[in-house]
């Protein structure tokens, strides 16, 4: 059982790390600001989400696990809002489509 949980952690964290990699590649390689903004959300939602899911079995109490999920939800909320707001400045400054 323990081995299985550890395996889950390893797989989820590695997948999460991959999405951070994808987010970075997108941020560096995509041609304009709005597409780059789109790359960002992958890291926010999936990268951190998978890391959090992977770490859940390593927590020693339910409250620690809840806190972990809370952190992810907070990042989702503020990350999505920030993206939307950044997109708005892009539209006003004319660099968007």
């Amino acid at each position, binding site marked *: 059982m323990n081995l299985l949980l550890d395996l889950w952690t390893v797989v989820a964290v590695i997948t999460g790390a991959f999405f951070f990699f994808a987010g970075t590649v997108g941020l560096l390689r995509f041609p304009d600001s709005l597409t780059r903004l789109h790359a960002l959300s992958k890291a926010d939602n999936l990268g951190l989400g998978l890391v959090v899911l992977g770490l859940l079995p390593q927590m020693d109490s339910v409250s620690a696990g809840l806190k972990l999920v*809370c952190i992810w939800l*907070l990042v989702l*909320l*503020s990350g999505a*809002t920030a993206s*939307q*707001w950044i997109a708005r400045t892009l539209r006003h400054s004319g660099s968007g489509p």
Partner: protein
Amino acid sequence: MIEVLNFGLAALILGLAVWAIVAREAPAAVVGFIVYGLLLTLVWLQLRGIDVALTEAAIGGGLTGVLLISAAVRLRSTESAFRAQRPAASTRWLAAVLAAAVTGALAICVLALPEPAPTLAPEVLANMAVTEVENPITAVLLAFRAMDTLLEAIVLVFALIGVWSLAPDLAWGGRPGPLQVADPNGMLAYVARVLPPIGIVAGIYIFWIGADHPGGKFQGATILAAMWLLVMMAGLADAPPVSRRWLRWLLVAGPLVFIAIGVVGAVTANAFLAYPQGFAKPLILAIEFALMPTLTLVLGLMLLGAPRRGKSP
């Protein structure tokens, strides 16, 4: 592995510090500085200073970033004039030599630090039981070095008075910060409704556990101040006019309670800021509770700046 991480952190921090200095435009430099603050948080974790990491995360990463990025965007138009003013090559070289000399001297000091390192940790541990708090940092802040914390609270209030005193005569007594006109159904208004309830709980939680675990009033107050700021940014609430009596009382309440308890200590325990036997923890808690609203208001209002709008806008 941990060495690789530490070296990477050090290299990144140095790179970002150089960027914050040499970047052409101020907003770009400030973004570098915000990331730099986040990295410092990680470094504090690596140096096993979790309380410091919390403070850096709240102040260095959060509030300072907000303060500097708004200022940088507003002052953008002034920058081009200054670019022509770059000091001569000779001045730059002299500055570089001076900076290198300071760095060299400090590096020699770091390498020549005495072994074993002097430490007060055992003494803190030996005397912590008297204060009845479990977090050594809180014991130092509010018992062993309470004078520093008292003076710090007073410095913060003075800094706010300094900011307020910059108000033009017409706006004195008015509301600080720009008037925010916001759509009540907009995205920011939405976050400003959802995030603060969670943030207030988190802020009070960080404040409350400070007695026994890493956390405390500064970190908690910073989070609360940030939530207040978010509500004001979204236009859901306006900043209070600085002439309000309740506001002024709350601002001085923390330091006043602190001083009062200090004076009581002078009478009952023979030293200013000493706590009578057996009353240490309740008194420490009383000080923390009194300081909490003061710190929240000071930190929030300091970011808003001088009063700009008169009593009748």
